[in-house]
């Protein structure tokens, strides 16, 4: 029997605590679009994406209406384009980015992911062509997101790719200098990338995935924050229990929406991603949750422990609520997209080093971090290498989405607007990593036994 209190709790979560479904992402395989003629590849891609995703936005809006829960984004992920375009006759993979952009525009989604390559052990010809095309493709298109996997626990870290990515990020920033380096906000460098992540900019449709699939990303930092606030004097066991219960309820909404979308679209339901995804809106912040646990500012001593507790409790509660959990499933700490993180950085409480430490306990990575425009490609590569090493050794996904904002210095702000928010430019270590990064080759995979 539902009680009036239970009904009102749900209503309050949506209306006052920003509970929403962050994204319904349709994964589409483009493996059958390969062709020797790149124009034929483009036609096949466009036709398939627009055919399968034709009703995605309308269906999302219908579900929103019926259930009264906002679905913020409807998006598409596709097979890594490095594979789709590889057998074609063109060296300019920007062509495929343009096709993706047009197809996404036609069906009305705001982002399409999959301008991607998996190069953790080395480059094929398609991978090299894709990487080369990334800066221009991201600068020239609105909706296309790119990602590159440079490391896995089993293969080690491809340091040639890491160095390459440092240079690509610099180039992408330079090409969009008038927009504070916006292109870099659409580019993620991964270690141990998941194949079913619904969140942008890192989403692509993995090669083990079916023809077409629906994945869902939930949100809800505001709901968790409110629950934590009510447990002011609770000990850690009780606190974890409260977060678990709340995460369960939040995730159930993702499960419901995923099942409904899957049934309405006639497409199999893939996974719910349990990540707590913040937005720049007040009260929708992961940093606020950590501060609600008793830290004066996010980033002070104790932040890593607080995040570890939060992330684990969210997963335990969420895993119970969904039949299939996947994607990134870790708390997001994107600096520009989280009002509490922005405040913590601007007040000097939160540094790049602390953010890196936080990513060790299962947040997803260094996300949406603006660094001074003069930061060298080698330093950016070294930041990526550190993050990839954390992912590789700890058998987890880590990612770097970093913006060397052209012309900006420490303490300046970059403005991206919308969900991407604004970020204070953070301090980077002044000492050089150049000789290290330029060695080239691969860092071997770590030993998986003798784990102490």
């Amino acid at each position: 029997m539902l009680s009036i209190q239970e009904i009102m709790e749900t209503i309050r979560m949506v209306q006052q605590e920003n509970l929403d479904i962050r994204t319904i992402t349709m994964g589409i395989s483009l493996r059958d679009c390969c062709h020797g003629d790149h124009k034929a590849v483009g036609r096949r891609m466009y036709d398939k994406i627009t055919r399968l995703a034709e009703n995605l936005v309308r269906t999302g809006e219908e579900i929103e209406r019926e259930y009264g829960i906002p679905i913020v984004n409807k998006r598409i992920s596709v097979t890594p384009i490095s594979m789709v375009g590889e057998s074609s006759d063109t060296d300019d993979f920007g062509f495929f980015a343009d096709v993706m952009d047009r197809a996404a525009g036609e069906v009305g989604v705001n982002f399409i992911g999959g301008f991607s390559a998996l190069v953790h052990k080395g480059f094929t010809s398609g991978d090299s062509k894709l990487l080369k095309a990334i800066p221009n493709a991201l600068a020239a298109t609105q909706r296309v997101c790119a990602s590159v996997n440079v490391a896995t626990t089993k293969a080690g870290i491809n340091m040639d790719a890491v160095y390459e990515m440092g240079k690509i990020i610099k180039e992408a920033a330079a090409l969009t200098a008038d927009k504070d380096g916006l292109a870099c906000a659409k580019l993620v460098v991964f270690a141990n990338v998941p194949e079913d992540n619904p969140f942008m900019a890192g989403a692509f449709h993995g090669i083990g995935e079916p023809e077409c699939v629906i994945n869902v990303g939930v949100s809800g930092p505001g709901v968790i924050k409110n629950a934590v606030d009510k447990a002011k004097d609770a000990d850690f066991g009780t606190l974890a229990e409260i977060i678990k219960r709340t995460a369960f309820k939040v995730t159930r909404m993702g499960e419901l929406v995923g099942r409904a979308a899957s049934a309405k679209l006639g497409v199999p339901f893939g996974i719910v991603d349990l990540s707590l995804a913040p937005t720049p809106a007040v009260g929708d912040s992961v940093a606020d949750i950590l501060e609600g646990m008793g830290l004066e500012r996010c980033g002070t001593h104790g932040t890593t422990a607080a995040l570890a507790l939060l992330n684990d409790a969210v997963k335990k509660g969420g895993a119970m609520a969904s039949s299939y959990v996947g994607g990134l499933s870790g708390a997001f700490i994107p600096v520009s997209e989280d009002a509490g993180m922005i405040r913590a950085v601007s007040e000097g409480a939160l540094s790049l080093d602390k953010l890196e430490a936080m990513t060790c306990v299962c947040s997803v990575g260094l996300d949406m971090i603006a660094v001074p425009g003069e930061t060298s490609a080698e330093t950016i590569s070294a930041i990526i290498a550190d993050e990839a090493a954390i992912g590789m050794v700890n058998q987890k996904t880590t990612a770097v989405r970093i913006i060397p904002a052209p012309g900006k210095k420490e303490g300046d702000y970059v403005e991206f607007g919308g969900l991407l928010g604004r970020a204070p430019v953070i301090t980077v270590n002044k000492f050089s990593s150049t000789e290290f990064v330029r060695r080239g080759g691969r860092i071997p995979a770590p030993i998986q036994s003798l784990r102490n």
Partner: protein
Amino acid sequence: MFEHRPGREEGAGKRVVITVLGKDRVGIIAGVSAVLAENDVNILDISQTILQDIFTMVMVCDIRNCKIDFGTLKEKLKAKGEELGLQIQVQHEDVFQFMHRI
């Protein structure tokens, strides 16, 4: 209010929860139920209470025979709510079942 397993019984997926929030006044139930009656929506249950000084009414309704589509019903109730100075929401019952029941 209701025991309900989604998808298991007749009429499943045809029940909605209407929540009315605002300041108490004369004619709330009459106003809302008039809109429902006009469109052949059957009221299965009503409960009301005062939560934190806010008048709160929850109705569970069957929309199987509803003459208008869900979106239009929602708009009509919203308009009625604005007329009465209330906030009226219509949501599929599954939302609440899914969140609070396994």
